[in-house]
C-alpha cells in the first residue's frame, strides 16, 4: 500500500484513536448496563466513522474488518442479536484489532501473518454471530390499507417522509439500515420507495443516493425517539414526521414541501392509509384556491402548533435539542489541534523570555532609574502571565488516563478470576501533558500489582468479612504545589514479615536492623525484589517496582506506600505540576546560588548566632531538624556571622535549610543537568539568573531523605 502521509491522514489516525477510546468506554459501560441504547449507538458510531474515514483513505484492511464488526453491531442495535457478555468481549477484541490495523498503517508497516490470522479468527467469530442472528427480519409485512371493517383507523400511524441526501452512501451510510432500525420501534405499515429523483442513466452517479421513502409507521415511540433513528444522517437527510392523527392540512403542507409531483404524492399518501381519497380531493381543491392568494410560508413549528398537532412544549423541547447539538458543534470548533512540538518550542521561548526579563530587571536596578524600574516591573508581570498561560496550554486532565484503566482492570480481573471494580476520583485534576504521558506505565504496573497481589481471592475476602468484590481506587489531587496520584486497593496489605525475610535473604538488611514501616515498604522498590509466592504472568517477577520508582523519579516525583494488614495499601505518587518553569526561592551559600521551589517554602527565620553546633532548632515549640547546606554540599569558605534558615516542607516532613543569604522569589526556568550529573542526588536541575550566573535547583525531598540517612548514620556511629 503506498500512502501519501498527508495531514489529513494524521488527523485520521488521531481521530481514530479517540474514537476507539470512546468505543472502549462505551463497551465497558455496556458490560454493566447491557440495555444502554446510547452506549450501543456510541460503539456503532465509532466503528462507523472509522470505517467511513478509512474508506476515504483507501485503507482496505481497516474498512473490510470494521465492516464485518459493524454488521454485527447493527444487528445488536436493531435488537436482532442479544448483547451477551461474550459478545462484548468479542467487540473489545475487534476494537483492539482495529487499533492494531490503524497502528500498522500509521507506522506504514506490513500486515504480518500474526495479525492476519487474528483478523481472520475474529472475522469468522463475527460471521458466526451473524449466522445466529439469521432470523426473519423484524419488518412485518404491510397490512392491507384502510381496512373497511377493521378496528384500525388511518390516523393511528406516524407518517415519515424521508429524502436522503446524495452523499449518504459516500459517507458510508446505507439508508436501508436506518429503515431497518426504524422497524425496531414499531411496525412499518407501508413503505413506498420513490425513484423520481433518479436522473437519466448517463447522468446518474451510482455512488449517489437518489431514493426517497414515504413510510407509515405504527409505533408507541414519541417523535424525538423516531427522530433519533436518523441522528447519524440528520445533516444529510430531509426528514418530515407527521404524528398519528395529523390533520389533512398538515399532509397538504407536506405534499407541498416535497419535491415530487403533487398528485403522485397524494396518491401515495392515500395508498399508505394516511388520507382517504375524498379528503385528498377536497383539500387539494381548497388549496388550489388558496395558493392563488400566495400566503407567506410559516415555519413548520408554528404551523404544527397552530394546528394543535404538537404541543408548544414539544416544539420547545425539539428546538432546545437542536440548539444543544449546534452548541456542541460550535464547542468542538473551539478546539484547535496543535502539534506538541510547537507548544514545546513556545514554552522554551517563554523560558528564554523569563531569563531575559530577569536580566533587564537587574540592569534597571543597577541604574537606579525609577521610571525604567517601573516599566520593567510592568513587563515582568506580563511575562509572568504569559508564562502561566503558556504552561496552562500544556495542562490536560488526568481523567482520560484514568479511564484507560477500566479496560486494564476488566481484562486483568477476567484473567486472574477476581471480581474487582475500579473507582476513579479527581479525574478533572490537571497536570502537564508530558507528565501524563509518562505516568501511564508506572500506574499500569501499580494497578496490576494491586489487583494481582493486593486483592485477595473472593473466599479469603469473605472469610475476612469484606465484600467479595474487591476495589481499586485511582485518585488525583493537588497538594503543596504538586500533584498527588494515589492507587489504593482494599486488599490484604503488604506483608511486613515476608518483606523483611526476603530482604534478609537478599542481604538488603542485617538481622539486627529495626526498621520503621515506611522503610520496610520502601524495600519493595529495590531491584529484583518480589515476595509473591507464585509468579503470575502479570507481576511477581521482581522486575517492575524498581522501574516504577525510577520512572517516577525521572519526572522529579516520589512514591510512598501506606499499608495496613487486612485493610489495604495505598501507593502515593507525588509529582511536580510542571517540568519546565517554576516559581522558585533564591538563596546564596558561599559563592553559589541555589533555588528551591517556592511552594515548598513555609517561612524564613534568622539563625541566632552562637548556636552553630546544634542540628535542630526550636521553632515555636516544635523541633525542626536543620540541614546545613554549606557542610552538606561541602562548600569552601567560612560561614557568615549571620545565617538564615529556610523552613521547607515536603510530603508532610519539615526541615530547615541553613543558608548564608536570602535573595527572594525568582522565576526559575529549569534546565536539565547533563548526563554527567545524573548520579548527583539532591540537585534536580539548573537555572540561569538574570546576571547570567548559574543557580542549582535543589531537590527538596531527596535532600531531606539524605539528611535523614546521614543523621541515622551519625547516630549509629
Amino acid at each position, binding site marked *: 500500500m503506498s500512502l501519501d502521509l498527508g495531514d489529513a491522514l494524521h488527523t485520521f489516525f488521531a481521530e481514530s484513536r479517540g474514537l476507539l477510546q470512546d468505543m472502549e468506554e462505551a463497551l465497558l459501560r455496556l458490560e454493566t448496563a447491557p440495555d444502554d441504547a446510547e452506549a450501543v449507538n456510541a460503539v456503532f458510531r465509532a466503528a462507523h466513522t472509522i470505517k467511513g474515514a478509512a474508506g476515504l483513505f483507501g485503507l482496505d484492511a481497516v474498512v473490510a474488518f470494521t465492516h464485518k464488526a459493524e454488521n454485527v453491531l447493527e444487528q445488536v442495535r436493531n435488537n436482532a442479536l442479544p448483547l451477551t457478555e461474550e459478545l462484548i468481549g468479542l467487540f473489545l477484541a475487534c476494537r483492539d484489532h482495529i487499533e492494531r490495523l490503524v497502528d500498522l498503517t500509521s507506522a506504514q508497516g506490513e500486515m504480518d501473518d500474526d495479525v492476519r490470522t487474528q483478523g481472520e479468527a475474529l472475522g469468522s467469530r463475527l460471521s458466526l454471530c451473524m449466522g445466529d442472528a439469521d432470523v426473519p427480519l423484524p419488518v412485518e409485512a*404491510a397490512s392491507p390499507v384502510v381496512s373497511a371493517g377493521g378496528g384500525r383507523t388511518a390516523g393511528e400511524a406516524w407518517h415519515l417522509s424521508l429524502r436522503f441526501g446524495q452523499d449518504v452512501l459516500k459517507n458510508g451510510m446505507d439508508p436501508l439500515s436506518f429503515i431497518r432500525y426504524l422497524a425496531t420501534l414499531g411496525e412499518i405499515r407501508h413503505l413506498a420507495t420513490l425513484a423520481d429523483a433518479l436522473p437519466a442513466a448517463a447522468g446518474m452517479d451510482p455512488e449517489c443516493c437518489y431514493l426517497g421513502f414515504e413510510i407509515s409507521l405504527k409505533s408507541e415511540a414519541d417523535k424525538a425517539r423516531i427522530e433519533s433513528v436518523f441522528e447519524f444522517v440528520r445533516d444529510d437527510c430531509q426528514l418530515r414526521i407527521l404524528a398519528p392523527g395529523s390533520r389533512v392540512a398538515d399532509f397538504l403542507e407536506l405534499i407541498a414541501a416535497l419535491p415530487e409531483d403533487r398528485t403522485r404524492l397524494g396518491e401515495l399518501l392515500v395508498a399508505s392509509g394516511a388520507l382517504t381519497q375524498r379528503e385528498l380531493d377536497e383539500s387539494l381543491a381548497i388549496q388550489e384556491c388558496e395558493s392563488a392568494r400566495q400566503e407567506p410560508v410559516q415555519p413548520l413549528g408554528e404551523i404544527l402548533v397552530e394546528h394543535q398537532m404538537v404541543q408548544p412544549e414539544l416544539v420547545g423541547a425539539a428546538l432546545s435539542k437542536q440548539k444543544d447539538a449546534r452548541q456542541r458543534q460550535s464547542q468542538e470548533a473551539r478546539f484547535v489541534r496543535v502539534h506538541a512540538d510547537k507548544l514545546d518550542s513556545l514554552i522554551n521561548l517563554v523560558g528564554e523570555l523569563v531569563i531575559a526579563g530577569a536580566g533587564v530587571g537587574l540592569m534597571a536596578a543597577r541604574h537606579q532609574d525609577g521610571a525604567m524600574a517601573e516599566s520593567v516591573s510592568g513587563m515582568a508581570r506580563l511575562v509572568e502571565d504569559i508564562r502561566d498561560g503558556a504552561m496552562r496550554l500544556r495542562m490536560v486532565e488526568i481523567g482520560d488516563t484514568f479511564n484507560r484503566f477500566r479496560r486494564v482492570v476488566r481484562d486483568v480481573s477476567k484473567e486472574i478470576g477476581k471480581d474487582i471494580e475500579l473507582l476513579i476520583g479527581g479525574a478533572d485534576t490537571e497536570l502537564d501533558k508530558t507528565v501524563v504521558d509518562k505516568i501511564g506505565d508506572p500506574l499500569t504496573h501499580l494497578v496490576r500489582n494491586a489487583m494481582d497481589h493486593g486483592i485477595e481471592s473472593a473466599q479469603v475476602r469473605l472469610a475476612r468479612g469484606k465484600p467479595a468484590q474487591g476495589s481499586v481506587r485511582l485518585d488525583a489531587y493537588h497538594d503543596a504545589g504538586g500533584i498527588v496520584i494515589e492507587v489504593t486497593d482494599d486488599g490484604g496489605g503488604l506483608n511486613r514479615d515476608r518483606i523483611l525475610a526476603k530482604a534478609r535473604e537478599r542481604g538488603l538488611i542485617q538481622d539486627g536492623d529495626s526498621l520503621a514501616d515506611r522503610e520496610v515498604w520502601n524495600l519493595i522498590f529495590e531491584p529484583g525484589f518480589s515476595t509473591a509466592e507464585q509468579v503470575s504472568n502479570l507481576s511477581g517477577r521482581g522486575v517492575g517496582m524498581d522501574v516504577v520508582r525510577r520512572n517516577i523519579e525521572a519526572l522529579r516525583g516520589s512514591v510512598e506506600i501506606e499499608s495496613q494488614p487486612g485493610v489495604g495499601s495505598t501507593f502515593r505518587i507525588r509529582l511536580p505540576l510542571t517540568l519546565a518553569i517554576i516559581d522558585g526561592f533564591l538563596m546564596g551559600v558561599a559563592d553559589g546560588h541555589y533555588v528551591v521551589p517556592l511552594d515548598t517554602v513555609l517561612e524564613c527565620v534568622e539563625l541566632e548566632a552562637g548556636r552553630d553546633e546544634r542540628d535542630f532548632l526550636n521553632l515555636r515549640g516544635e523541633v525542626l531538624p536543620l540541614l546545613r547546606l554549606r557542610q552538606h554540599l561541602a562548600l569552601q569558605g567560612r560561614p557568615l556571622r549571620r545565617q538564615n534558615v529556610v523552613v521547607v516542607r515536603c510530603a508532610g516532613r519539615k526541615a530547615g535549610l541553613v543558608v548564608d543569604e536570602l535573595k527572594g522569589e525568582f522565576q526559575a526556568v529549569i534546565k536539565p543537568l547533563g548526563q554527567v550529573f545524573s548520579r548527583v542526588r539532591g540537585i534536580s536541575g539548573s537555572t540561569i539568573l538574570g546576571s547570567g550566573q548559574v543557580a542549582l535547583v535543589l531537590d527538596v525531598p531527596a535532600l531531606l531523605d539524605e539528611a535523614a540517612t546521614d543523621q541515622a548514620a551519625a547516630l549509629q556511629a
Partner: protein
Amino acid sequence: MEIRSERHEACLRLYLAGEMTIYSAAELKPALLDAMGQSEEIEIDLAGVGEMDTSGVQLLMLLKREAAAAGKTLRLAGHSPAVLEVFELLGLGNWFGDPQLLPAGLGAAWEATP
C-alpha cells in the same frame, strides 16, 4: 462482483454474483448498462447476490426504468434472500413486477401486500 452473461436466443441472461453495494456500484453501472445495450430482452439473475444496499437497489431501478423507456424487456429472476429482504423492506416487489420465488416464511406475508 462478477457478471457472467449467456445468450438464449433473443434473451441475454446476466448472472450476478457477489455484493451489490456501494463498493461495487461504480463498476457495476457501466457493465450493466453496456449489457442492456446489447439486447432487446434482458434477464438478470440475482441468485448469487450475497448483499445488497441502497446503491444496488437503485441501480436495478435505474435499469428497469431505462429499459422501459427504450421499449426493452428487463426481468429480474432468482432473487437471493438478501435481495428479497431488501425488496420486501422497501416494498419494491410490485414495482419491478417480476415473479419472485419466496421462501416459505415470507410468502404468506407477501401476498397481503397491496
